[in-house]
């Protein structure tokens, strides 16, 4: 029998469900309009022209990333392959965060703001136009949560047979 969660550890499963739900939501927003998401991926230009066999890598990303977020979020919430799911979500989140930061340095994305952190543009995250500093802060919080709640070995589960 595993040790029961105690103290501040008590809400960890609940927090994990909430974290998983956030990623399911992000994935769903992208999944419901695949072409819009493909265009967002294309606008970053980092996968432009790359192919895997006959398939443009942008198509693979537009098809695969939303599913990975939905499945990853569900697995994280359910505690199944939790660390593997969290690792993928963290990898993609870190990559997209770097891309959002890189794109925010381009003044043409929002000519009204000179400071990169105040610029607003559609990051392709499924939530429409975002202000850079808010998006980066949100992603930092999510990344930290993924590491603490998803990637870190769970002491209670380690005690399980």
């Amino acid at each position, binding site marked *: 029998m595993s040790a029961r969660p105690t103290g501040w550890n008590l809400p960890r499963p609940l927090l994990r469900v909430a974290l998983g739900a956030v990623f399911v939501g992000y994935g769903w927003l992208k999944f419901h309009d695949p072409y819009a998401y*493909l265009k967002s991926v294309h606008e970053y230009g980092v996968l432009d022209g790359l192919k895997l066999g006959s398939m443009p890598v942008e198509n693979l990303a537009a098809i*695969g990333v939303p*599913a*990975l977020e939905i499945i*990853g979020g569900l697995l994280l919430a359910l505690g199944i392959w939790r*660390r593997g*799911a969290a*690792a*993928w979500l963290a990898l993609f989140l870190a990559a997209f965060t770097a891309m959002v930061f890189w794109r925010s340095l381009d003044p043409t994305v929002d000519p009204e703001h000179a400071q990169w952190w105040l610029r607003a543009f*559609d990051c392709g995250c499924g939530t429409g136009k975002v202000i850079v500093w808010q998006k980066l802060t949100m992603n930092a919080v999510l990344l930290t949560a993924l590491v603490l709640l998803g990637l870190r070995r769970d002491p209670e589960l380690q005690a399980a047979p």
Partner: protein
Amino acid sequence: MIPPRSLPLQMLAVAATALALAFAANSLHPQGLESSRDYFAKPQHSFQTVTMEEFTDFVTYLEDEAGDIVYLDARRSGQYQTGHVPGSWNVPRNDPAALEAALGALQVAAYVVIYCQGGHCEDSIFLAEDLVYRHGIDFSIVHIFEPGWEAWQKQGGAERAGADR
């Protein structure tokens, strides 16, 4: 606990599951992507184009007299909501309902001017082809504003936010 327990194997299992379900869901999705199609290959077109100067004149005319010119914004609805040419209709790709809504105005228009984001965007060309070859709009009235929204915004063109139509 469901095996595997090691992190690399778990990642492999998650990736395999997600990819299998991704392609299954994509094939069932009404707007699913064709996996091997290059959506961003710049299509050649023979539609008439309008310059920035002409576009500016047209917009002024549209604002003043709301006449026979129909503007179509082929960008995503989120981009349209953020800002668009005043009076333009939003007809994103893969949105037949939006196209249906604009058809009445298109059928009595003397000029149709279509724009998308600019740069490498090609949605205005796809929309123009749709209008002419699927909906019988006269080829000679369809025009494409190739510089697109970004160029229009950079030169301080008129814009409006929210749902115009």
